[in-house]
């Protein structure tokens, strides 16, 4: 039973988990930080995963690669550290444009206890100041999908420059957002008079935002437990808020920032009224196809709770089950409070039992990963790929309508196709 609210039904489940590991975060992180390179130290499976996840879309030599561990590394015939140094040399010689290199730990590197943090320190000293080398783990034994971003950002926190105490307070928005969304948010905050705003991660490794005792952090993503903790340890204050999903979610999220920065009610309303109305209007177009429809979430990105809140509150959908890989009680406190009473939340996964429940419930729409989507569709169950919710700009006022459309499209499509 729920520890967070007496009105929610929370269960935990263990069994086969049909989710990605944290390495997958590289797919969007390498697009966001444009002078960073991600070197996975792992197996052929890791390389194959990222390649399959990114799609075989080779427009460019990508800014990620895998140092594949081979038999001779395991047998001790090769010194793993010397091998890693050799590969990093090879890599950085090819790519003089790289300013930040992440050594990304994987399941095999964790199991053989390869110390990537020492390797990062050693290589950083060697390539300083041209390239900074950091490390984090994206292994499946430690991270689930979006937690890879959390681990990556947490590894960057110690490198953020300190903000002098005499400087005015600054707002740090944490979590990868599309550039266009960042620009929109910055404009609204500007209009409120909140101008000391930084985004983390930055678009370029050199543009790291400052952090200090005067810093207030506002999470843009719900999966950043370690990053938030690391920032708090650097003195930053945490702004409690729901997440910027949907018109209302975005308004509440911005209000939390406005309150933290002492913005008065009138200024806040003036800055947000027009975009909020626009967002409401855009969302309203999708009430008709979505209201009253029953939705079932398989766990994926930890975005499930804010998404479910948006679909229930702003579009009138009925929540059958909200599965999530991990439920961060305190970061999601405001979200959980906004869920309809009686909502069934499932943390963790046993995919076979969950499929049984899904078939029994016969929902109108299922949000699930790509391994499950077509098999469900072939049984006549309409699905929405959850991965698109991670790669598409969905946060903020001007994306609220697009987000609603992502859920409406599969249902509309089904009515268009002649049976």
């Amino acid at each position, binding site marked *: 039973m729920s520890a967070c609210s007496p009105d929610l039904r929370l269960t935990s489940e263990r069994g086969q988990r049909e989710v990605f590991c944290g390495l*997958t975060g590289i797919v969007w992180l390498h697009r966001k930080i444009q002078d960073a390179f991600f070197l996975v130290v792992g197996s052929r499976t890791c390389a194959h995963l990222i390649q399959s*996840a990114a799609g*075989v879309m080779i427009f460019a*030599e990508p800014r990620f690669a895998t140092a594949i561990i081979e038999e001779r590394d395991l047998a001790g015939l090769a010194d793993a550290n010397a091998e890693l140094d050799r*590969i990093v040399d090879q890599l950085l010689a090819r790519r003089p444009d790289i300013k930040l290199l992440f050594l990304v730990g994987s399941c095999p590197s964790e199991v053989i206890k390869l110390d990537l943090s020492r390797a990062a320190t050693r290589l950083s000293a060697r390539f300083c100041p041209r390239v900074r080398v950091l490390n984090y783990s994206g292994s499946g034994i430690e991270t689930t999908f979006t937690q890879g971003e959390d681990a990556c950002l947490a590894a960057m926190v110690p490198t953020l420059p300190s903000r002098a105490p005499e400087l005015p307070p600054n707002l740090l928005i944490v979590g990868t957002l599309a550039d266009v969304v960042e620009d929109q948010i910055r404009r609204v905050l500007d209009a409120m008079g909140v101008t000391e705003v930084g985004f983390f991660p930055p678009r370029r490794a050199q543009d790291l935002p400052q952090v200090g005792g005067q810093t207030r952090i506002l999470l843009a993503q719900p999966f950043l437990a370690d990053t938030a903790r690391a920032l708090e340890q650097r003195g930053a204050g945490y702004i409690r808020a729901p997440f910027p999903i949907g018109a209302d979610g975005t308004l509440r999220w911005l209000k939390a920032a406005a309150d933290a920065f002492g913005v008065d009610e009138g200024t806040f309303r003036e800055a947000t009224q027009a975009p909020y109305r626009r967002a409401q209007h855009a969302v309203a177009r999708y009430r008709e196809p979505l209201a009253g429809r029953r939705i079932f979430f398989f766990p994926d990105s930890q975005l499930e709770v804010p998404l479910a809140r948006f679909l229930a509150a702003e579009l009138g959908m009925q929540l059958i089950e909200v599965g999530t890989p991990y439920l961060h009680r305190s970061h999601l406190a405001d979200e959980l409070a906004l869920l309809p009473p009686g909502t069934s939340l499932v943390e963790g996964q046993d995919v076979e039992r969950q499929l049984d429940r899904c078939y029994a419930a016969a929902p109108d729409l299922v949000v699930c990963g790509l*391994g499950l989507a077509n098999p469900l569709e*072939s049984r006549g169950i309409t699905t929405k790929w959850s991965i698109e919710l991670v790669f598409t700009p969905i946060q903020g006022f001007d994306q609220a309508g697009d987000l609603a459309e992502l859920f409406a499209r599969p249902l509309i499509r089904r009515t268009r196709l002649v049976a």
Partner: protein
Amino acid sequence: MQLTVWTYEGPPHVGAMRVATAMRGIHYVLHSPQGDTYADLLFTMIERTAQRPPVTYTTFQARDLGGDTAGLLQSAVRDAYDRFKPDAILVGSSCTAELLQDDPGGLARALHLPIPVIALELPSYQKKENWGAAETFYQLVRAAASRAAPPAGFRREPRAAGDAPSCNILGPTALGFRHRDDLRAVEEILAGLGITVNVVAPLGATFADLARLGEADFNVVLYPETGAQAARWLARTFDQPSIKTVPIGSRATRDFIAEVAQAAGIDATPHLQSVTSRAEWYSRSVDSTYLTGKRVVVFGDATHAAAAARIASEELGFSVVGLGTYSREFAREIRETAERYGVAAFITDDYLEVEAKIAELQPDLVLGTQMERHIAKRLRTPCAVISSPVHVQDFPARYSPQMGFEGANVLFDTWVHPLMMGLEEHLLTMFRGDFEFNDAAPASHLGTAHASAPPSASQLPPSADSRAPVFGGVMGTAPVLETGPSWAPEAEKELGKIPFFVRGKARRNTERFALERSLGLITLETLYDAKAHFSR
């Protein structure tokens, strides 16, 4: 360690999945960490299978490592048996579980399930996907067919008079490059010859079907990468010969029919006289003369690469200037094949090495995998895809085999269409001096404004033709790879007036010309000097 940007093959357990998914009534329990389930989407998204692959993953996490991962495996096996009721169960480790040394096979056998349990030993740090598929298929075949095995030294009796000859078809798997359609094409050929197909495996076979493999007179191995290992055991055990020719291309198809007829002890002459190949005629038609001597680089798995080289050379009159494979297991065969075309084979699974090789050889056409398609796109060279690794485009809705005479027709279209129409190329050459029909004149129907000229290479969008097979399109633009001379604006503009299908070549030739003369800047003069230099 090996630095890898893109891989041609997945890990060996993905090969095992291709076999398990192809068959019916088989379940695979894979001891693996959370995240390895990504492999499911290869099947459900790329091949669009309507069912999940029959795979249970133990998905252990860090907290399980200190505890009982062995117990986790046993409960996963037991649950999978109870839920799916398979005829046989495969058990094995992925790369991470291999390091734990839990002995999945022993643990699964200790459960005393009433079905065969086949333990797979697939060394992830040495081997790759195709090897894993071949090994898995071989282990399944042995487990199923051993009981029916005759004593050692068995010699097959001649077939009784009046019995139709029969064969097995070995090799097609799930997620195979056109395996579904190749199978149909080959079954049609065999039916035309009056040969009965005893068992097709792994695709569509049950464990019980594998037990009957020894009943056939001989084996047809469509894909040696996945089927040869099992076929060798069947040859030893049941004295079943294997057909060596892979029927990709018109000539290989004729050879295949002759070889099959010999193994079956029948006369194929009437059948061979009745078949027609449109590709063979098209290649002899006058429009195809422009194909003569086109320089091609071939790269793929061993079977498809070798077949493509033969078709390119013998059936289309191309010049094979490069031949390579990522199938190291077949390096010797490919080296021998390459010698026939007077080139040295490149055996590598390093994508960057393949890219460098293609850039160096400057072919007119690349016959490769989806990886080479991207390389060719960057080099602005036409390309056709001939082999795995597969992409959603390699599972077309229509019937589109590579094998048999229809396959040869498909290959003719697929390889020739990326090249410019023959007639157009002739006209360009013939009217090169015409004031309205020279390389620098815009198309007459577009008027004379420069604005209507086709965009120059540098203005083209990075690429618009591919979809993200799996995830959304988040990739960016390509950095320019070459560090050659730079282009003066007016020369760049002039280049843009050259018809797009020869523009890439003109750009490369001009840059090579400038490089050889140490010219840092390509001017209008350089462009036309180079044109004069290279024109024949």
